[in-house]
């Protein structure tokens, strides 16, 4: 009985220590050699609420989230995409009482880091082939706002953390194509149409 209690005490102690310890390193390595395809064809009529359509083709995606009090010594992210990412969205939308949102997105590599303290962040992203997004939409008789977006990104990284050092290497050798063809009629609110093609994007905020 005494032996059992001792073993249990040791086990509890180890568990407590493990819980109190901070994660020291986070390594992510992603490689995708396949083609990624997303296609959405939609016909929508007579809706008494919002309408949101999304077609997204994403090859490599990495997201790390820690609280404001979190602490990490090193975070390494490596993403390599060697395929095609293609997103096609065709939509016909009519008679909607509220807002309408349609989005077509093709992304090769995406990384999102949100954390407290991180000593060193290393980010490497490579994209070889073409992310392509197309949006063809006809939207009419809408009571609210209309937003239509076609976005193609090769390498995208977002860092929101208190870091000591950030080293990022993004290489895009691919063609990046975003096309949006939007026809809008009879809209009560505002209309926003966006076509965005970005090779490499790094956004750093925080502190």
């Amino acid at each position, binding site marked *: 009985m005494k032996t059992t209690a001792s073993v249990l005490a040791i086990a509890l102690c180890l568990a407590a220590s493990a819980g109190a310890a901070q994660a020291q390193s986070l390594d992510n390595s992603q490689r995708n050699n396949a083609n990624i395809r997303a296609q959405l064809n939609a016909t929508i009529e007579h809706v008494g609420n919002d309408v949101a359509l999304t077609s997204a083709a994403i090859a490599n995606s990495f997201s790390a989230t820690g609280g404001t009090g979190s602490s990490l010594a090193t975070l390494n992210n490596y993403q390599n995409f060697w395929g095609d990412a293609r997103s096609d969205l065709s939509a016909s939308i009519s008679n909607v009482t509220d807002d309408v949102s349609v989005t077509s997105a093709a992304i090769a590599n995406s990384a999102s880091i949100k954390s407290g303290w991180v000593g060193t962040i290393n980010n490497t992203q490579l994209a070889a082939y073409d992310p392509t997004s197309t949006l063809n939409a006809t939207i009419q008789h809408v009571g609210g706002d209309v937003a239509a977006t076609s976005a193609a990104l090769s390498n995208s990284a977002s860092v929101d953390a208190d870091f000591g050092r950030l080293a990022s290497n993004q290489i895009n050798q691919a063609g990046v194509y975003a096309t949006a063809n939007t026809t809008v009629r009879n809209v009560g609110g505002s209309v926003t*149409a966006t076509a965005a093609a970005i090779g490499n994007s790094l956004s750093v*905020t*925080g502190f």
Partner: protein
Amino acid sequence: MNRSRSILKSAVLALAGSAVLATPVLAQSAPARGGSLATYEAGYANGRQMEGRTYGSSSRERTGNRLIVNGIIQSDSSSYFESDGNTGDQAVSGADYFSTGAINSSSTAIGNLLTVSVAGSWNTVIVNSNQTNTGTVTANGSVTANSTRGTTTAVAPNGTTPPR
């Protein structure tokens, strides 16, 4: 005694004369220092006699932040933005605008984009970013709209077709 006074007087006159003569010399040498040669003498990003000066913390702004991007201290430590949309990039935006419609249409093609935003205080932020884009980046957008209500607004980035 008289001889000593004479020697002293001669020495004083000589010193005074040399001082008078030295002033024009200095005045003449000043423009030479202000010439382009001085920048080469000082070395890259180095001013004269900087070796003897203490380090000035002027790289920090009111917030006390210091932002270093790719080894270069930024004058604005609160934000940094760099966008490159050159080789092979193409952006085309076409839109029909009606006086009764509220339209925002944008078409953007960017090769490399780096954004750094520092909100706190007394931080030293070091960002080393290497972005290489050799691919064609193209964004095509077209909007046909009518019978919308509100104020007409059009947003077209550089290099795009201006709104009609």
